[in-house]
């Protein structure tokens, strides 16, 4: 017989846990849900747009009643649980409905706080928490004129905005002088107030409510200073209190909320609790992002996997008032130990403030331009040392050169038909629609449902903004626990560490040792694991072709019509008549439809049939050419300029330095593709300063530049150091590549890697510590012993992977 799981509280946190549980252990429990509200589960966050008339209740349902039925879940809607019999493992609802449990999950949310002033219980005084409240407000707005909203926080302002859009005359009453004082500082709070006033809201700041007046219905509000204003509707939005009544009444340990440990267990081991009703490590939360993290951890324990832990969350805020862009996170006020960077442009209505402590972001508040909110939030949660790019912080990430939109446009001001994702042609309206209609909460959800930011990723920032302005907060999970893919809870770093420390030399070995959740992984983790074991144990690990993307398996690039392209290596961009003749002959012999000079100084042959690949390679091999790895997460090209040999400005022999760099590094597998360039003088004709490793020759030696990228996000290199000899150029290149190979996450190019770990870190290992540099270079050489084999030749003459290029059978 299946065990019984009972959930009390049919809200966002509780149901999220059930969904997570169904995902990982669909058959484990008979599930019963009690909900005091008479509906399925809906997206409470979107009550604000419903009030504003931008959405309907139907549009914000997350799991309708049919969903419960389809998943075999018993839903007792409209039934409030009145007690829990902990000894006999039963819950009893007000109407007498009783259910037994083996495990119980409490997710009772919170209650709006009502200030106990005289008149607080008059008809016409309501809170803003559920569908009932929204209905009452909409009803009132049809009959009445004057609304007073007590509380100028997030909820209060969203309620006020909604009521105003419903045609009411709205006054917001706030106790202190700054709106949303927990999310805004005085300056940004002032800007917010000004733009809300321009839209037609009225404010009464520093006003303390003394009484609500009226006899059979509210008539007005009186303040401590004697002022009275008229009101037909009063909305109290002064805060929430965890709803722990039930838990307390049955003796569960509660403080400010129901106390839980890192596995979301209460003091009764059969009872778990998550959501706004809990207190974890002394904190309570009132935004869904952390509650969803709790739900995930809780599901993991309910499924008896027993590995996940919730360690608390950092949250950020957005106000869901269409057209208003504000963002805040962390400690943005600061103290004596912090510094701040502030940018204020009153003309454009933009204000940004970043608070730093020891060069790490503690908090940020932004108004008018929140494009970089997600970036600052990420840096803050990662605890990134920003000293290496502090001057660029205020200018923002987009400034670093995204192609496409990159986040240059403020999401809030975009119209629905503006294109967000240029690769997949997705407009803002499509994204907003998917978020609300399909109940999406994370970037990954949006990616898989709409394809926006699913390809090159340059619009990720913009999609995150749209998500945040639709849902009101940052929904990405805390970075330290970000798993490698859906098959595991372990992060890239944890996996890499285990491979090294536990001497894991195969994909299977890693999956077994780290308890992979799927039998043989997926298309995301297998290529990553294959690279990690090979990079860590070059002599021992065996390559697994079935875990490589087709290009690396077939050693050619797949094209949209299923044919392949072939790019032979041209060392440092140099070529010879013999090579060119051989290429021309191949084109004639195999009827190659198109040839082109690539952006990497070599020649690409397009439209080759897969079965012809070995024969094409054989002819190229015969002329001394090898694979150009144009298809690999590996060393690609080394671009050069003519240099001192011919050029009147050349200072060093850039061409032969480039050739040598390519000779020593070709064949090396990397976390992502790796490109180099050598320019003969600072005119930099080889564009060395947008390469992963770029060398700029100068009269006195060589400048070494690292971490450049010319693709989706243009990033200019950082100067690593200057060296005097060619030998040093080579040794530093090996050390740099090896550090990258050993530390970066799979599919992370050097540019984002350096931004993550900091240039100082790279300098420390590659430049400052000579012993370390030598050791890194030696490890690089060692791995090259196994990697520098021409994959084309192996397939042409040694019959490697023959099955790859022949069909199983021809019929008819």
């Amino acid at each position, binding site marked *: 017989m299946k065990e019984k799981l009972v959930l009390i509280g049919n809200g966002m946190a509780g149901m999220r846990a059930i969904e997570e549980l169904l995902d990982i252990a669909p058959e484990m429990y008979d599930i019963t849900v009690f909900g005091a509200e008479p509906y399925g589960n809906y997206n409470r966050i979107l009550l604000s747009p419903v009030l504003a008339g931008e959405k309907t209740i139907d549009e914000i349902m997350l799991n309708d009643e049919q969903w419960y039925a389809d998943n075999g879940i018993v839903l007792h809607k409209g039934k409030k649980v009145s007690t829990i019999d902990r000894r006999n493992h039963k819950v009893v609802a007000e109407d007498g409905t009783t259910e037994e449990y083996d495990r119980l999950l409490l997710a009772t949310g919170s209650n709006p706080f009502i200030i106990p002033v005289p008149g607080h219980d008059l008809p016409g005084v309501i809170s803003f928490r559920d569908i009932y409240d929204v209905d009452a407000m909409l009803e009132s707005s049809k009959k009445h004129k004057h609304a007073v909203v007590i509380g100028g926080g997030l909820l209060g302002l969203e309620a006020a905005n909604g009521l105003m859009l419903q045609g009411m005359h709205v006054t917001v009453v706030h106790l202190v002088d700054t709106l949303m004082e927990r999310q805004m500082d005085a300056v940004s709070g002032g800007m917010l107030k000004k733009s809300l006033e321009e839209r037609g809201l009225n404010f009464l700041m520093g006003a303390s409510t003394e009484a609500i007046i009226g006899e059979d219905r509210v008539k007005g509000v009186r303040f401590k200073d004697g002022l009275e204003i008229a009101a037909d509707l009063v909305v109290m939005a002064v805060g929430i209190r965890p709803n722990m009544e039930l838990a307390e009444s049955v003796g569960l340990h509660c403080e400010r909320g129901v106390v839980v440990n890192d596995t979301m267990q209460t003091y009764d081991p059969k009872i778990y609790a998550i959501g706004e009703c809990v207190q974890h490590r002394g904190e309570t939360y009132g935004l869904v992002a952390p509650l969803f993290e709790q739900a995930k951890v809780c599901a993991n324990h309910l499924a008896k996997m027993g590995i996940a832990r919730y360690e608390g969350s950092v949250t950020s805020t957005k106000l869901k008032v269409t057209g208003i862009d504000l963002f805040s996170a962390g400690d943005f006020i600061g103290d004596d130990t912090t510094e701040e960077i502030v940018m204020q442009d009153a003309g454009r209505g933009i204000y940004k403030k970043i608070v730093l402590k020891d060069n790490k972001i503690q908090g940020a508040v932004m108004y008018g331009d929140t494009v970089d909110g997600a970036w600052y939030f990420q840096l803050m949660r990662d605890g990134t040392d920003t000293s290496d790019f502090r001057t660029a912080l205020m200018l923002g990430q987009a400034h670093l050169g995204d192609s496409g939109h990159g986040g240059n446009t403020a999401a809030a001001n975009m119209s629905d038909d503006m294109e967000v994702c240029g690769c997949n042609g997705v407009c803002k309206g499509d994204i907003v629609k998917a978020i609300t209609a399909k109940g999406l909460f994370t970037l990954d959800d949006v990616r898989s449902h709409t394809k926006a930011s699913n390809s090159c990723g340059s619009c990720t920032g913009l999609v995150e903004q749209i998500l945040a302005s639709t849902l009101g907060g940052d929904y990405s999970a805390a970075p330290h626990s970000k798993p490698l893919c859906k098959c595991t809870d372990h992060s890239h770093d944890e996996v890499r560490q285990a491979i090294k420390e536990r001497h894991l030399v195969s994909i299977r070995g890693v999956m077994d040792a780290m308890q992979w959740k799927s039998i043989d992984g997926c298309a995301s983790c*297998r290529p990553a694991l294959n690279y990690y074991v090979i990079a860590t144990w070059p002599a021992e690990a065996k390559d697994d072709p*079935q875990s490589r993307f087709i290009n690396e398996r077939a050693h050619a690039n797949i094209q949209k019509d*299923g044919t392949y392209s072939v790019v032979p290596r041209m060392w440092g961009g140099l070529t010879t008549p013999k090579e060119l003749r051989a290429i021309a002959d191949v084109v004639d012999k195999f009827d190659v439809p198109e040839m082109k000079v690539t952006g990497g100084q070599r020649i690409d042959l397009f439209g080759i049939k897969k079965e012809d690949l070995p024969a094409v390679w054989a002819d190229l091999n015969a002329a001394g050419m090898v694979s150009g790895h144009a298809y690999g997460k590996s060393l690609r090209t080394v671009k050069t300029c003519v240099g001192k040999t011919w050029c009147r400005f050349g200072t060093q022999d850039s061409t032969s330095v480039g050739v040598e760099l390519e000779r020593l590094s070709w064949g090396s597998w990397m976390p992502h593709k790796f490109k180099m360039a050598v320019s003969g003088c600072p005119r930099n004709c080889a564009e060395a300063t947008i390469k992963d490793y770029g060398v700029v020759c100068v009269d006195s030696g060589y400048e070494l530049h690292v971490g450049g990228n010319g693709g989706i996000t243009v990033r200019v290199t950082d100067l690593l150091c200057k060296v005097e000899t060619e030998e040093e150029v080579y040794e530093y290149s090996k050390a740099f590549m090896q550090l990258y190979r050993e530390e970066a996450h799979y599919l992370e190019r050097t540019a984002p890697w350096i931004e993550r770990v900091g240039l100082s870190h790279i300098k420390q290992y590659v430049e400052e510590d000579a012993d370390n540099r030598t050791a890194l270079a030696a490890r690089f050489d060692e791995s090259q012993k196994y990697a520098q084999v021409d994959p084309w030749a192996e397939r042409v003459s040694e019959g490697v992977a023959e099955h790859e290029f022949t*069909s199983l059978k021809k019929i*008819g």
Partner: protein
Amino acid sequence: MSDWIEVGTIEDIPVLGARVVETAKGNIGVFRTVDDEIFALRDECPHQKGPLSQGIVHGKRVTCPLHNWNIELDGGAVVAPDEGCTASYPVKIEGSKIFLSLVANG
């Protein structure tokens, strides 16, 4: 009523891999899972006709090499949230021999 055609042996296909059977009506991909189950699908992704036989096989699914859609090997349905279906063909194993029918399941 299907005519079974012998196309090769299980060992001819790499574990977690695929091979192609060429037919007059186009290619059929024959896939092998980790526990040696064999499936046959029309070698065309419902999205933009990507050759599924070139994808990465995992569980009972293959990821299309062109834009990463996932397709169920058993039946050819596209995994949500994407939508679509590619034809699947009956397969029979005798000993290690693979027999294929060219009459699509339907």
